[in-house]
């Protein structure tokens, strides 16, 4: 079984390994970084630690959320420290059998495809597994 932390991003139902998730927060005040890659929404202060915030919508090529709509921060432990992903809404932590894991369906195209590791076919819908390492990789931004 695999424990996954799931969330919504535009039309996608996404997941990351729950063990890598440190915490989930409502939208936090951000400090923009001029000249930074556009997917870097800014820096946030997490109890004295400075954490980069990656706009997943931008990474996947989705339009920004309408103004006034708040996003959520999913904080993941990465190789170079914590990274926060901005997502539309956080859902449940679920358990799925590892053997249900499948490669990404051919129908999925575009930039998003590179950021996904695979998918789980759930009863009602498809759960896409985010390649968190690639999504936060500085050299890919």
């Amino acid at each position, binding site marked *: 079984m695999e424990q996954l932390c799931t969330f919504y991003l535009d039309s996608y139902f996404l997941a990351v390994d729950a063990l890598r998730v440190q915490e989930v927060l409502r939208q936090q005040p951000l*400090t*923009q*970084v*001029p*000249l930074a890659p556009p997917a870097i929404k*800014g*820096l946030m202060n997490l109890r004295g630690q*400075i954490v980069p915030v990656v706009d997943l919508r931008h990474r996947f090529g989705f339009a920004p959320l309408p103004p006034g709509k708040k996003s959520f921060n999913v904080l993941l432990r990465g190789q170079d420290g914590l990274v926060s992903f901005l997502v539309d809404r956080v859902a449940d932590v679920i358990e799925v059998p590892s053997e249900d894991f499948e490669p990404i369906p051919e129908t999925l195209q575009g930039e998003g495809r590179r950021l996904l590791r695979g998918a789980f076919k759930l009863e009602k819908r498809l759960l896409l597994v985010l390649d968190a390492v690639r999504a*936060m990789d500085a050299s890919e931004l």
Partner: protein
Amino acid sequence: MDGMQEIVAEFLVESREGLDQLDRDLVALEETPDDKELLARIFRCAHTVKGTSGFLGFTKLEALTHAGESLLSRMRDGEIRLDDAKTTALLAMVDAIRAMLDEVEVGATDGDKDYSELTETLRQMAAGEAVQIKRSEPVAPAAPPAPVHIAPEPAVEEPIAVDAHAPAQHESHTANETVRVDVGLIDHLMDFAGELVLTRNQIMQMPSTRADALSSAAAQRLNLITIALQEGIMRMRMQPVDSVFSKFPRIVRDLARGCRKLVRVELEGKNTELDKTLIEAIKDPLTHLIRNAVDHGIEPPDVRQARGKPAEGRILVRAFHQGGQVNIEMSDDGAGIPLDKVKAKALARNLVTPEQVAGLTEPELTSLIFLPGFSTADQVTNVSGRGVGMDVVKTNVEAIGGTVEVETQLGKGTTFRLRIPLTLAIVPALLVASGSDRFAVPQVNLLELVRVEEGRNEQLIEYVHGAPVYRLRGKLLQLIFFDEQIGRPSSVSRTSFYIVVLQASGRQFGLVVENVTGQQEIVVKPLPKQVKDIGIFAGATILGDGRVALILDTLGLAQRGHVVSEIRERAALPKLSDLVLAAQERCTYLLFRGPDDGRMAIPLASVARLEIIRTDQLEPSGEHEAIQYRDDIMPVVPVERVVIERRSRPRSDAPEASNNEANVIVFGRPGAYMGLVVADILDIVEGPVTLQHAGTRPGVAGTLILQSRIAEILDLDYVLSAVLGEEQARSLLKSA
């Protein structure tokens, strides 16, 4: 049993410290073999190790140190002189002691390795000249002028058991003054202090209406205590770079011997202090660089002599603070890095494509050596040339937020420059605002703050050849608009703004910002990797309200704003020391068109103003023409008049013929102005301070290469004297 372990642990720490000192002293002793004080210190150290190891029952260690001590004792007494073989043997002893101490640490014994041969060598050396070792003592009291405080003299005469007590007593005296503290504990305290500073900032920012008199007094006290605490902890963490540098003479000596080269190391700025963690972090990169310098840089003596250099190579390691950063430079006067070889190697190893190489400039080619898997050594030696190294140096330095630069000249030498930024530190900073964002400017880079308001200052911003400048007390200051640099529409009002005068690489420039919101102690935190390479931010910090603020990197800003050139122009490198100097002493020049269309320049600092005058307003006045200028009469002279033209070719006398206007460079000060008419103002550029060649005609002080072309430097002294008369010129130059 615990007590015993403690003693052993203490013995290990003390001995290791002693050995580090021993290494340095032995190499130093080689230079001055008759230095009695050095000898005494070396002897004492060996003696202490011998005594304690005997007491603790490490017999092999004891036998070895005893043999060494005997040799040292006779040298101290002036009976034996140090020579090369003896130094080598003694250094071997130091290494052997180190190895045995490592064994003691893990296994509580001095190990299975056999050092009897070395012990025997030392013994023979000690016995070498005199027949008996033991009986030589009576000479001792006569020979040394007793520079020793804690009588090491009886050492050799007395039984070992007694020796063991002597050093123990000696230690107990000094132990009262210093305490050994675990580094981890200091790091922890540092973190707490950082948090305390943030909390303090939050409290200080509370609206004053809410704070009654009592709590504001408490807040004030909290503030003072925080400052004191933080300073104390900071100081606790500082160490002189000497702790790294001092290892270099020994490393170089051993390596040079191994490669059959003659190398001298010179260390400068040993007392430059650096945060302990940074010292640790630069230790390996620096060691690697110095090994490289000996192995690859310095040529063998015969080659050097054939090339007309002294047989002995020279490596200069230099540390200094500059603009809130620690700079470490390592220069050698060796063979330099052959760029064609670099190119070939990089291609052979598929690190770059031929197309890429074709487009590279020299500095870019040089920096190929930092690519992983690169090595130019033809032969793999046991020192270097295994293809690991330079990339590791770069990675290590960059890991602490620093940079490495390399500058090389074939046949002349190579200089590596490490720039270690301020990290992990609490620094005072100025907070500036752009829109709703605040940025921190470390105060070490800050020279002054100018508020510019229309009406109050006579002139706001002027433009010289498109570059914005501000006249600050009669000197032209280049400006950078912060909003523009960070790619935002300007938020600065044209009529009121601040100029933050900063210093980078010895150059001053003004940063134009919308507002200044205050100053604060900030805890510098490294930037996350995703935003590390932007170049104009040195780090980030958390402000009192909990928001993150970016810390500006002054040098990065200056480079981005083209105030200092990113890749330094290559000047001729006559001497190693000049090479180091040249990198630092640079100034800004105003470049203009001189007579015969040549390029002329003058230090920007000597220029008061640049004006455009109407030539029909010129009136004859004595020898020269003059114009009314700022309620004053300013003599105005065309540059052709003071600098003699080389070619006599017919040309219209006045360069300003076409539209009745002329460019005038104004020198001097109110009451004593002088104007120089030039055909064209070309540019403002950076260049070395020292002139490269002397002038060849009157009015020219010398020549310089600016922007890879020759420019003549105007002899201001001469020009002012010619126009204003010597007396006034002298008073002007003096006041400048």
